[in-house]
């Protein structure tokens, strides 16, 4: 299982990574593997303001529909709409081209509440 050492995680398998002023969010390699082939991602609208723990979207796999949760509060500034035509990229590159949304964080203190890669790895063992 792959892990992005630069990301922080939620127990619900979302990852968050700081890139300049924004935070990029996706799902972990473990999550994509458990879900099986991803066929659809439902996104929020750019401009939506969401709190930590809010559902920001849904990932649909051949197996099931799973809610996606905000790792930290913030305003959605971008969605990865290339996944509309190529949702399989969530499987092949979950930490890279398979990212889902970018947000402008609302409360910087929440970052420190997320799991480190080591803590996340321990949580799924």
């Amino acid at each position, binding site marked *: 299982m792959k892990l992005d050492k630069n990301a922080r995680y939620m127990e619900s398998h979302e990852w968050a990574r700081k890139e300049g002023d924004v935070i990029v969010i996706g799902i972990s390699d473990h999550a994509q593997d458990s879900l*099986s*082939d991803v*066929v*659809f991602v*439902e996104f929020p609208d750019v401009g939506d303001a969401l709190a930590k723990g809010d559902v920001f979207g*849904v990932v*649909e796999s*051949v*197996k099931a*529909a799973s809610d996606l949760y905000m790792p930290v509060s913030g305003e959605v500034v971008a969605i990865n709409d290339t996944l*509309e035509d190529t949702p*399989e990229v969530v*499987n092949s590159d979950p930490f890279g081209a398979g990212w889902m949304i970018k947000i402008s964080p609302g409360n910087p203190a929440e970052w420190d509440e997320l799991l480190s890669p080591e803590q996340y790895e321990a949580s799924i063992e």
Partner: protein
Amino acid sequence: MTQSAETLKRTNLYDWHVAHGGRMVPFAGWEMPVQYPTGPKEEHRATRRAAGLFDIDHMAQFSVSGSQAEAYLNRLTSWDVTTMKVNDAHYALMCYEDGGIVDDIYLYRLPNRWFIALNASNRAKDLAWMQAQTVGFDVTVTDVSDETYMLALQGPQAIRILQKLTDVSMKSVARFTIAEGKVNGISTLISRTGYTGEDGVELFFPAEQAVEMWESLLEAGKSEGLIPVGLAARDSLRFEPGFPLYGHEINAGITPIEARLGWVLSLNKNFIGRQAILKQKLEGPSRLLVGFEMIDRSVPREGYDVYYQAEKVGHVVAGIFAPTAEKFAGHAFVPAGIAKPGTKIRIEIRNKLKEALIIRRPFYRPAYK
């Protein structure tokens, strides 16, 4: 019904599946591979493009013999079996008196007996039903599922692959017929049938030879691109050509008319359920199975409500992303009056009504037709 892992049955290929990354799930009382590391979409596409190998030993097989086997089966099943020649194979239904479906089955007429393949989930029910109907006939129904292994080899390259391992000339085995011969030295019933919409075979042979048969087929098919395929792709492969799956498009509360299986009915002969079916055919069914594709993207899953205008009119019985059609698509029962291609319906997905369009089935036309 939930079953603990302890009570689930395992096929003789269980260890092979686990060793090769098969993801094992409970299905019809068995622990079966839902997918391999390749993933369901590619397993589906590989079967349409080249070939796929399926462990379907969870399926049941019965043997029917006796001097009145033909008359018995003609009373029991929807198809006129007197039209079947020796070595013919045909799809058929068993119905209750009220027209509801006991099970969908495959019938094989062998030189000295009849052979039937049935759904795993219905094995005990089917055996009880079939034995109860033997009264008055010189016929014996025997469950031979345990000693019989069943594999499916499907796809445009399937016949070429099988030919490498068998002395039977596959040119002489037409679609919907069966032959007896050796495959890799193993005595096998080779049936030119399947449930994927592709050409191919289903193989029946002694259960203890399962691993040897499986591995020899995979080896023989390596150059053609043969891969093992799990239940998830098996479901999408049967969905696209519109083949019903018991518990979804058909069950005891659904008739063949409602499920649009009129082509499996020989209504000019007497069989259990015929009168009710004839009556419904004459009066017209109140609901019908339809295929639909999503206009708004999303996966229409089983159980979701179907709306026509403002009214809730039915529910989804099967829904997937169809990998060959490249559509989000489903099957639903809706009132007969709106069951026409071109009708717009809406599917309630996560509290939102998403637009869908009833289309003419199938989503994929079987390659062997």
